[in-house]
């Protein structure tokens, strides 16, 4: 069972393509063309003769055929289109059309028939009722995301169409690199288990991010998640449902669906987050930093308050502020201004020069008690955000320990952030977010240690 016909197709047919960009088919067709996909693209529409430069075919049967077909036509025509795809040898379907299992008995029946056709022709299907798929590495944007994501290691599975794709758009703005984006729709054929397996084996996927409302095949999903060693970060919604009705047993009233999901995710090594921001903050860190050997961290900042906020947050997440060795303290004394104190968290007492940051960061990295570093820079009009960023990047190159940065402040900070982004450093505008991201690295390492034993 390979989903490569869906995610790495050599050719794509868009059934329901249109010149009208306001129609799903029209929008998706336009996005595929604009995105720069290099495979063959065939618009299928029985009313139109040409869309842009491409010749339109009334049916996929009239076309040369495609490995993947996107179906965005009214529900009553979908079965016929799927049948034709099967006859033509198409292997993957992405059915955008809604009005199937999500609407009621008649829709469920229609969905069953659709699945019957998929099985008959040995095809695989995403959806129905999906907003599409994207693969940044082959420049395939078969979704309504407005811009092609930058290729990167984060793959994103979303159960919500609109929210999921709005998020994907947002990650593009945030500069996160994405690999595969898939809006799962009704999961009538391909479900979370299949996607985890596929992404687990996909060499370009480094981190899997998920937006989940409900899981099918829960136990198989857990087993699969445990076998996938890549970090999986998820937000699962629907916390507020209170399950307890009759109080027959304590367990009955305490074991709500949400507590059970938390337990299950923990067992599967899935990092469950409370907010969307946390999911992508964690995904960013997990995609470009090594895992720490322990939970002992050193913090450096040019402003005392920020380092205290960071160390408070560390305590909250069970991250230990490392005791520095004698050697490190000696080095810090030499690197810091005389009125600065060589303890962890390190406060440079306002100095943010290249030399101060370089020597301080290096001293901390060399300390055997330190397994991770949080580097904070607080920007004011009196200093330059770039040199400390350059120092951080320079030193990081020499050490395999993870570093998380927090460049914070107003106008001018972004110049330093640009340096960090270029070097693929996970940077956050607030200390708490930086600490939470580090906590995710530690959590994932704990999971790997646990399953190895």
């Amino acid at each position, binding site marked *: 069972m390979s989903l490569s016909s869906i995610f790495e197709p050599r050719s794509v047919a868009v059934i329901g393509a249109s010149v009208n960009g306001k129609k799903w088919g029209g929008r998706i067709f336009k996005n595929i063309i604009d995105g720069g996909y290099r495979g063959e693209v065939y618009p299928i529409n029985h009313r139109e003769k040409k869309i842009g430069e491409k010749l339109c075919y009334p049916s996929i049967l009239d076309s040369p055929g495609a490995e993947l077909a996107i179906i965005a036509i009214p529900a009553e025509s979908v079965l016929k289109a799927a049948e034709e795809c099967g006859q033509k040898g198409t292997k993957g379907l992405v059915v955008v059309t809604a009005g199937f299992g999500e609407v009621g008995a008649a829709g469920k029946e229609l969905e069953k028939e659709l699945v019957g056709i998929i099985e008959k022709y040995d095809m695989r299907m995403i959806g129905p009722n999906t907003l599409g798929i994207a693969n940044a590495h082959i420049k395939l944007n078969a979704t309504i995301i407005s811009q092609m994501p930058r290729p990167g290691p984060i793959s994103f599975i979303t159960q919500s169409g609109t929210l999921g794709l709005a998020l994907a758009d947002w990650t593009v703005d945030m500069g996160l690199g994405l690999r595969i984006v898939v809006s799962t729709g009704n999961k009538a054929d391909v479900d979370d288990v299949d996607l985890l397996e596929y992404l687990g084996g996909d060499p370009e996927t480094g981190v899997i991010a998920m937006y989940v409302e409900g899981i099918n095949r829960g*136990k198989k999903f857990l087993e699969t998640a445990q076998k996938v060693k890549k970090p999986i970060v998820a937000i699962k919604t629907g916390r507020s449902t209170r399950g307890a009705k009759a109080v027959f047993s*304590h*367990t009955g009233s*305490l074991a709500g669906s949400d507590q*059970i999901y938390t*337990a299950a995710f923990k*067992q599967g090594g899935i990092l469950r987050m409370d907010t969307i921001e946390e999911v992508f903050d964690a995904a960013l860190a997990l995609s470009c930093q090594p895992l720490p050997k322990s939970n002992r961290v050193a913090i450096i900042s040019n402003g005392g308050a920020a380092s205290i906020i960071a160390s408070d947050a560390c305590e909250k997440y069970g991250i230990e502020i490392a005791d520095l060795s004698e050697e490190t303290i000696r080095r810090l004394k030499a690197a810091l201004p005389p009125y600065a104190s060589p303890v962890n968290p390190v406060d440079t007492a306002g100095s943010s020069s290249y030399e101060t940051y370089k020597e301080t960061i290096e001293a901390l990295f060399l300390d055997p008690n330190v397994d991770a570093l949080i580097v904070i820079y607080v920007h004011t009009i009196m200093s330059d955000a770039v040199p400390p960023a350059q120092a951080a990047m320079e030193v990081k190159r020499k050490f395999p320990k993870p570093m998380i940065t927090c460049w914070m402040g107003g106008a001018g900070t972004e110049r330093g952030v640009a340096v960090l982004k270029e070097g693929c450093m996970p940077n956050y505008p607030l200390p708490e977010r930086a600490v939470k991201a580090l906590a995710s690295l530690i959590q994932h390492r704990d999971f790997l240690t646990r399953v190895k034993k």
Partner: protein
Amino acid sequence: MILTEHETKEILARYGIPVTKGALAANPRQAVDQARVIGFPLVMKISSREISHKSDIGGVLLNIKSEKEVVEAYTTLLENARRHAPSAKIEGVLVQQMVPSGLEVIIGAKKDPQFDHALMFGLGGIFVEICGDVSFRVAPITQKEALEMIAEIKGYQVLKGIRGKKPYDIDAISDILIKVSEMVEKENILELDINPLIVYGQGAIAADARAMKK
């Protein structure tokens, strides 16, 4: 279908979970016969599918030390049941071994639409009833996961022994969690409470249990 304490314990025993010795008596004479087999002291409880919270209605009598007390207790229990739950169908009275006190914990299970069965562990009494200090896992669990879920509760130090008190048998709890994990899948249990499981420095025994199955 609601199972009585007696029926629930029979299933637990089949899976190797230690339960207090007990038998159902349909009349005072049978109760005395059972008392002779089990030995004193005893606990006697009203047995009815429709009475879930026995202590609330005077349906539990402790520390029964003689055959005379057995007969008196039998009558009292039936009277209390008739007064507080007149329409309940009474099966009889459960005559049960009374075990020494130890640390009370709760082990539970619940059927879940996504993950088949969830397991629950916590310290008993107010810790579960008022504080909700419990941990969950989904079945099946390994020994490692059992030990992890035990260690996860806020009151874990109580199990390890505090203020000079000796530690309780955590391995016994872990063993029972694993057996419950196996049992709920095979027996199609919808809900289960073993409450309390009484834990000692060595060993543990289920003093009361309730369950619902398909």
